[in-house]
């Protein structure tokens, strides 16, 4: 027995070696594609001169980042949170209160808000991750609503009145730009790149595989040694962290927040929708979904919703419903299918 390993190391077959090389090449290609797309997006605000369209671009990039954050918990780990407005609100309020009341730099506020949100996510996850499926989703709705109610009645953070950022000269130090939207486009893009890189890094790691295993079948994952509870907690903390950074950036962008304008249920839905529309649990789904959804929402609101006729809602709700039913895997799956079909033909 001595000297013989208990389990013989498998002979690495040339086929396996080849597969590993192809996988590494595919990962490298993804990074090149990412770098190209991000460079293009960084240049885009300079090409758009119209302030209204620049606003649409800022919101699109911000929602792409927020949805990518949601995607980590909802798409990869399969825990459908409909209460992310809570983390968004924590980020927006922490950054705003620290800056407006105490003069703390918004950069620091973003970090502190994000850490606070991650801690809150862990505190919520600890009891709630025992709930499955719809039960979990409904618990997240109720907790976010309770948070909204508390903030509305908490005078220290401005109650229902909200917080107004002071008017300052444009500066990267205070993250305030009164007229220029380009810096905000870059900030939102920066956040998206950060969430994209985290997703990219984690997706093919032990954690990422653990998350997907938990999503597909928690019981089976557990029996295979995946630490289901810790996987969910990690996904929740990362997801809440970046959602709160987005909340802080949003507060600096609109420079006035009140409970309804950052914590209402509408936001929780808006964070989930782009990823669902583009393709949940994919690297590019959130960006593709946001690029479709946000311009349509903004433009239909300006052209159809101005009169309050409700046509914009009919259009928007109908779109969500039809996409959910017709393309459960999201818009991106359209391209995959054509490629698969092409391979079959070729």
């Amino acid at each position, binding site marked *: 027995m001595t000297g013989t390993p208990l389990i013989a190391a498998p002979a690495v077959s040339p086929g396996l070696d080849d597969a590993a090389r192809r996988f590494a090449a595919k990962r490298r290609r993804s990074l090149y594609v990412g770098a190209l797309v991000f460079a293009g997006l960084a240049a885009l605000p300079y090409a758009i001169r119209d302030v209204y369209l620049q606003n649409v671009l800022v919101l699109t990039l911000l929602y792409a980042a927020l949805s990518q954050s949601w995607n980590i918990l*909802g798409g990869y780990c399969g825990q459908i949170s409909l209460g992310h407005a809570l983390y968004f609100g924590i980020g927006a309020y922490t950054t705003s209160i620290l800056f407006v009341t105490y003069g703390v730099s918004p950069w620091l506020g973003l970090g502190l808000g994000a850490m606070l949100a991650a801690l809150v996510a862990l505190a919520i996850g600890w009891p709630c991750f025992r709930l499955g499926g719809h039960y979990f989703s409904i618990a997240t709705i109720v907790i976010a609503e309770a948070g909204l109610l508390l903030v509305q009645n908490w005078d220290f953070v401005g109650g229902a009145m909200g917080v107004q950022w002071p008017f300052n000269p444009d500066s990267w130090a205070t993250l305030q730009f009164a007229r220029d939207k380009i810096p905000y486009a870059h900030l939102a893009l920066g956040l998206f790149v950060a969430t994209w890189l985290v997703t990219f890094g984690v997706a093919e790691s032990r954690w990422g595989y653990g998350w997907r295993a938990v999503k597909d079948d928690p019981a089976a994952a557990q029996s295979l040694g995946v630490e289901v509870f810790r996987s969910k907690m990690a996904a929740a903390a990362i997801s809440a962290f970046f959602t709160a950074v987005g909340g802080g950036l949003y507060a600096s962008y609109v420079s006035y927040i009140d409970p309804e304008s950052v914590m209402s249920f509408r936001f929780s839905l808006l964070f989930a929708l782009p990823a669902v529309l583009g393709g949940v649990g994919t690297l590019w789904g959130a960006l593709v979904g946001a690029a479709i959804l946000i311009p349509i929402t903004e433009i239909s609101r300006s052209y159809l919703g101005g009169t309050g006729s409700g046509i914009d809602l009919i259009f928007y*709700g109908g779109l969500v*419903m039809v996409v959910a039913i017709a393309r459960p895997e999201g818009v991106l799956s359209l391209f995959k299918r054509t490629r698969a079909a092409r391979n079959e033909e070729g």
Partner: protein
Amino acid sequence: MTMQALVQVLASGLLTGLIYGLVAVGLSLIFGLMDVVNFAHGEFLMLAMYATFGLVFVSGLDPIVLMPLVAALMFVLGGTIYFGVVRFAMRAKANQGMVQIFATFGLAILLQGVAQYLFTPDYRSLQGSWLGGKTLDLGGVYLPWPQVFGALVSLAAFGGLFLLMTRTDFGRALEATREDQGAVALVGIDRNRIFALGWGLGAALVGLAGAVLTVFYYIHPGVGGAFALIAYVTVALGGFGSVFGALAAGLIVGLVEAATAVVLPPSMKSVGVYALYLLVVLVRPQGLFGRL
């Protein structure tokens, strides 16, 4: 607090609670039948309120007289939505849970848009119902008649539902489908038909609640949201799928809300309900009367 004030709080809590139970029971029924959470449930309530409003406007009749007609219309709507939307959402091969959530959410937004298109976003209220503004004096405890009437309708509806589920073939088919969807097909029950009837019945029940609410609640396209949240809490508290859990949980929610309003400012009356919900769900994830 005097004895009389205490009884007053208890009584109004119970009345509100019965109405909450009626609002929630359709949601629970549909979930129990086919494991689908209808995220457009609040919008069903909103539509029923507008239907009552429109019918009163056209016919000049009292909303109470129109109640059965509203329930019938909602029954048709519920069945139609099953055949037109939900049936397709249930066919999804990938991301089943997510498809159901977002298909019914999309439907909710669409229905809000339809209401806004037809009736404008203005707040409306119905004036001149027989019951409007009248109160019942029970030895110093004052109860508004519209709420008393709503509570009676709720009790009658639960009674009727009990008879329907225990004494009729439809009720037995419903129960059988809940137990085993595959097996009922073998004995010749059309699953789609039962599901559609379930959606019709769920919508009709929330339709009754909507018709009752028009007498003492304002109507606007977003009115469903506030009630929907209470309905989810009620159903989760009582146990998803449990019809009589919805009644019991409705009563508890009504009482806790009334009690919270005594202690905290009225704007925070829901805090007690949310806290109770979280407590129950953490101790007993399946709710008070639910099965996991």
